[in-house]
């Protein structure tokens, strides 16, 4: 055990996976000599050399296409996309190829690639260094989508991803890369996919949040507690597969739901969770389902604090839900 930041936990997870299995190889832009623009791959080039920590030309198409080819041959490639905002040149490879390889080949060619990429706002990154477009990937059948919110989960989910048999989009909340530290188990610590984390128990309202939205959601829950409102906070951790039963069970208990994400609201994951509840927890619902999300605008720069959900907005939505019934 030891206290690590989230990005250090990612680094630790990569290093341990590489030590344990020579088939694990990394590829991406500036991940080798430079150690990654966020230092997630710091030290790995030195330890594992350029045949396992591959600095590629500036082409996300090439990175993901090559990673797929490696995976078909039996390696376990972990590709880094420098910012989630720059994943789109690889979008065709991801949605047309990676997501569908096992399916279209009738299981003959499974294709296990992990794509790591930092996502999200709050770092003054403007339109192109802040986006949260997890919904694109969640909507694409054949991809698993993972978002840790603690150092321990970062390592544990990453190791599960690397040992999985399916393609995994691994989204790292860069805003809290260094802002949170926590105990991280040594060794082969794995956090299973499809199991939500109960961050805080409560009986009055369920707050669902993941990634960098967990800290402000917890902050909101604390504010609410001081007012006598007991909010439950649930972090799904894996968006696909989603722990639907934990989500439904929580709302069966509380009767109220607030869903939080940074991504734009329209067709975001919040819509899916709300739909799920409106179908499966319908008779337990006591109040309209609220979403506290990024707005349906591109991500702004100077005014990102206006755009982003925060504890105040989350608490207000929760209060409304409680007052509504």
């Amino acid at each position: 055990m030891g206290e690590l930041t989230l990005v250090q936990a990612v680094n630790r997870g990569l290093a341990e996976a590489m030590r344990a299995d020579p088939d694990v190889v990394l590829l991406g832009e500036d991940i080798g000599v430079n150690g990654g623009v966020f230092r997630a791959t710091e030290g790995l080039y030195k330890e594992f050399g350029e045949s396992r920590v591959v600095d590629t030309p500036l082409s996300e198409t090439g990175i993901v296409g090559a990673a797929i080819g490696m995976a078909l041959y039996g390696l376990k490639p972990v590709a880094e996309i420098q910012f989630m905002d720059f994943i789109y040149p690889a979008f065709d490879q991801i949605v047309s190829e990676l997501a569908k390889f096992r399916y279209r080949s009738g299981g003959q060619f499974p294709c296990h690639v992990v794509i790591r990429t930092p996502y999200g706002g709050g770092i003054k990154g403007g339109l192109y260094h802040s986006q949260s477009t997890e919904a694109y990937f969640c909507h694409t059948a054949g991809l698993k989508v993972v978002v840790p919110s603690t150092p321990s989960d970062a390592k544990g989910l990453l190791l599960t991803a690397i040992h999985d048999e399916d393609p995994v989009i691994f989204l790292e909340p860069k805003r809290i890369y260094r802002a949170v530290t926590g105990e991280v188990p040594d060794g082969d610590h794995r956090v299973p996919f499809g199991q939500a984390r109960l961050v805080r128990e409560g009986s009055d309202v369920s707050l669902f949040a993941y990634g960098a939205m967990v800290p402000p959601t917890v902050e909101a829950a604390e504010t609410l507690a001081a007012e006598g409102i007991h909010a439950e906070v649930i972090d799904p951790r894996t968006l696909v597969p989603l722990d639907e039963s934990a989500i439904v069970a929580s709302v069966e208990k509380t009767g109220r739901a607030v869903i939080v994400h940074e991504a734009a609201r329209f067709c975001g994951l919040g819509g899916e969770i709300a739909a799920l509840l409106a179908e499966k927890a319908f008779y337990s619902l006591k109040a309209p389902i609220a979403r506290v999300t990024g707005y349906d605008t591109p991500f702004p720069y100077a005014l990102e604090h206006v755009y982003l959900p925060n504890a105040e907005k989350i608490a207000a939505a929760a209060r409304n839900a409680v007052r509504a019934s």
Partner: protein
Amino acid sequence: MASAESVAQGNSSAGPESSGDLTPEQILAGYRLMVRARATDERCLSLQRQGRIGFYAPLMGQEAAQVGCALAVRPEDWMFPAYRELAVALTRGASLRSILDQLLGNSADLTKGRQMPNHFGFADQHFVTASSPIGTQITQAVGTAMAAQRRKDPIVTVAFFGDGATSSNDFHAGLNFAGVFRTPTIFFCQNNQWAISLPREKQTRSKTLAEKAEAYGFSGVVVDGTDLSVVYRAVRDARARAVAGDGPTLIEAQVYRLGPHSTSDDPKRYRTDAEVAQWKERDPLVRLRGELITAKLLDEATDQKIWDEARAEVVAVFAEAEKVPPMAPDSIFDDVFARPTPRLEEERHEAAGHSQSLGGPHG
């Protein structure tokens, strides 16, 4: 840009076996494969017109290029086809039955009825299941080559694609990665002069497609793709260079798509009969047949027998394949992931409740 021959001469590292030419027996075997492919094409076009298969994209005109290429590589090499590589599959040893099962999407289809006809794949043959988006297999072939490099396996990967695909993103990324990492990859471009209705000269203004390799720091060669032996030699030499660590090669095999782009296409809308007639004179089967007869490796009667057998085989095998029942309805939920998620199991259950809609198409 070097010619195939000049590149071949410059290559000192090719081992003895790889410098050998095709033996007469091999050429004859190649001819038989070409005939099987052509017989399959002819039959499938007619089956599609009869509504017995849903779609077909013929390769006629490209047989020598495909068979020549596939004869020059080894079983352990990996093939990354586009959707027209039927003769490559046959040459690799894929069974005609398996190919026809795929065209039907029946329950014997290795791809489990998931894809349109022509998108077959055979793991045993290292023949990767095709997809429709143009060019995507190119970067993948490079990635597999990088993996083989890492494992120190002396194999090559071959990416198959058309003239149109040279405009794709993956062509650029794939050839660039191959150049930078000197991967053992053969980029086998069948320039059949058309990308659906777009003629080669409107696809790009470079003089040849092969010269595009120079932009990535390696060589390209243009070969006559209607000549089995010429193609064989070019691929053989490219393979030898690749496994010797001398990097990738782009081969432009000049051929002609004698048929329509697919059964959905009417080439009369965009090209002249005269052009087609001109290229029909260079039909690779007619050419090779002539050469074989001249060389007394083949006579008219044997040739007739080869054709009759090939045609009979397709008819017989298709009749068998047609008898195979369809996939089970709930098989659509398999292979999304290694193991279905709870949600997929729930959807499987939901679908099972609609027995009527499972009855048949457009139910």
